[in-house]
């Protein structure tokens, strides 16, 4: 046998062992079908995000409060101008109301309403039109001004276009759009952070198994404490990561143009910005602990680093699934899907963070946090028991998942 032939044979021997060792495991099936599952969940997530945006758009309005005779020309002017504005700049639908005596106050109240987002209000007369608009809706106000001018022209052909008085109103109520944006920000933010950070937990028990330190730990400390300790250690790492990048990004944010800052100010959670930040941190914590405890328990069953690596894809899928579920839920407040995602332990932190943006009550959050921490305890207990039974029994004992697939 030539040296080259021998080397090829040796190489193929190694390749064969690695191939069979990888493929003939149940974890490989999860890995194999991961793209299908991931695509499904990605679609769910995408639909959720789309429906959040759509939900906000559906509730936005332009309002015209003008004397009765002007309604027809305003509607005609809107019909003429609306096709000229396309894409993202398309203004919300125009609603006509009869003129009222205290129009400025009514306009202000409309702009400050909780239930619907009135972006701009046209009142006065077509000869002396006034546009009141919310801080972030200047484009819609300009469109409404154009409608007023066009309507005036239609009413009195050949006359000069009227001057439109623009009034910017500082609104106090969180808008539906702002609430939805905050909800989506919360869900996506927690998803993004846990995607990066909680997956790190999966391989932490591998170090103890490889170094044989686990026997020392298991003899001295209850396994539940070992699991919780490792989880909290990694949570500390995650918090350091978040603190570092939070500081860096906040400093970068100060250098950004004003428009970007204005966009961020559009996040108007119903519960208030500071409580929202507190709840965001709390739900990030529980999301990390919940997903981390599941990943830790699953990862502890992996016998080799290869198995740990192969678990990373199913883990990402679970995270994307929870994101998809929660983002769908925030777009349908009060639906069965929302309730389910708020109750299901792994999606609960995401969904409840979304709820913090849309509802002002505190007690559901306190209950949810307690519920989520209870499940952290449950997952840690299950993970520790599976580890004790499957791994610590002896060197030859198969992990629980292997026993599940083992032939009798």
């Amino acid at each position: 046998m030539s040296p080259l032939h021998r080397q090829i044979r040796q190489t193929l021997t190694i390749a064969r062992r690695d191939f069979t060792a990888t493929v003939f495991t149940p974890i490989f099936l999860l890995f194999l079908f991961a793209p299908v599952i991931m695509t499904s969940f990605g679609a769910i997530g995408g639909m959720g995000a789309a429906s959040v945006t759509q939900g906000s758009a559906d509730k936005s309005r332009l309002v015209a409060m003008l004397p009765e005779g002007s309604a027809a020309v305003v509607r005609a002017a809107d019909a003429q101008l609306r096709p000229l504005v396309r894409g993202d700049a398309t203004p919300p639908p125009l609603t006509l109301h009869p003129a009222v005596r205290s129009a400025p106050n009514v306009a202000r109240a409309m702009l400050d309403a909780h239930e619907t987002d009135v972006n701009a209000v046209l009142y006065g007369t077509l000869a002396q039109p006034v546009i009141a608009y919310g801080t972030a809706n200047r484009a819609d106000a300009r469109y409404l001004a154009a409608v007023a001018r066009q309507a005036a022209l239609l009413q009195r052909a050949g006359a000069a276009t009227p001057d439109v008085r623009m009034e910017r109103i500082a609104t106090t109520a969180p808008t539906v759009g702002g609430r939805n944006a905050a909800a989506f920000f919360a869900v996506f933010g927690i998803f993004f952070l846990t995607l990066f950070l909680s997956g790190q937990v999966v391989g932490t028990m591998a170090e103890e198994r490889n170094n044989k330190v686990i026997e020392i730990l298991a003899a001295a400390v209850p396994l539940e404490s070992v699991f919780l300790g490792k989880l909290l250690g990694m949570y500390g790492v995650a918090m350091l990561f978040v603190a570092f990048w939070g500081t860096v990004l906040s400093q970068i944010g100060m250098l950004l143009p004003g428009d970007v800052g204005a966009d961020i100010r559009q996040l108007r959670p119903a519960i208030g910005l500071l409580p929202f930040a507190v709840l965001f941190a709390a739900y990030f914590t529980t999301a990390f602990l919940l997903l981390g405890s599941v990943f830790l328990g699953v990862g502890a069953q992996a016998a080799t680093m290869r198995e740990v690596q192969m678990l990373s894809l199913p883990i990402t899928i679970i995270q994307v699934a929870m994101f998809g579920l929660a983002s769908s839920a925030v777009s349908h407040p009060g639906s069965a899907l929302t309730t389910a995602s708020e109750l299901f332990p792994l999606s609960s932190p995401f969904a409840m963070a979304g709820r913090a943006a849309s509802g002002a009550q505190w007690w559901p959050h306190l209950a949810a946090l307690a519920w989520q921490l209870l499940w952290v305890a449950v997952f840690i207990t299950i993970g520790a028991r599976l580890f004790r039974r499957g791994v610590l029994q002896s060197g030859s004992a198969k992990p629980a998942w292997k026993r599940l697939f083992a032939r009798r």
Partner: protein
Amino acid sequence: MRVASTDYAVVADGLVKRYGERRVVDGVDLTVPKGMIYGVLGPNGAGKTTTLRMTLGIIEPDEGARTLLDGAHPRDVGDRVGYLPEERGLYPSMKAREAVAFMGALRGLDWQTGRARAAEMLEAAGLGHAIDEKIRKLSKGMAQLVQLLGAVVHRPDLLVLDEPFSGLDPVNQERLEALILAERDRGATILFSTHVMQHAQRLCDRLAVIAGGQRRFEGTVDEARALLPQQVHYVPSHGDAQLATMLPPTARREAEGWRFALPQEGIEGLLRRLIDAGYGIKGLSIERPGLHDAFVRIVGQAVPEAKA
């Protein structure tokens, strides 16, 4: 078996562990009096490690019960127990002093005291130069010693050592023996497993032999040795093929002379017949059998039983 647990550091009663259909440990009893060095002897795969792990509460027995240190559940007296597992394990990136202190901290010793004691103990064990070395830079024997110090840094009342001598060179084996004796003199109870008889014979106050998952013997070293008759080592002045017919049937030839069990009626009659036949006596000694022979006998009996 029911034993009052107050005088015992370990009381294990009918421990059973099954892996699938196989009973790896099959009704083992252990009673380890306080302040003793107690050996658990057995061949490879006898169930020693599983017994110790059940005793310490690392795994739960399928049947039976065990208590440590005045009748407590193992989990409740973790801070009073030290343990050196068969598979040695340390974090490679930890420094020696930190590793010892870490193991003490797991058993309730505060870090500051743990670090101070670790430095003293490493110095005393001849590892003063390695106090701030990372474990990955130490030799296997040195790392093993570090782990052993970690098992005793919190001054436990019960020290459990699973195959503590395996992998150690003779110098470190002596150090370990000295450390075990020092721990016993301090008042600790030591329970250790081994299949190397010399250590057990030198150290153990009492011992149990486990084979095939069952306890086959329990007693002192002398009681174990008394299971076999004394051995006669006879060297004739000159011999021939006929000599073997005059010796007991169990006699076996050695490099020099013959070895056989001391006959029940004594040796005098046999010697007289050998002298009369002209074989003479060049050398003669009557020896008590060692623990090794007793162990081979106990385990040898157990193997056919287990197969049956």
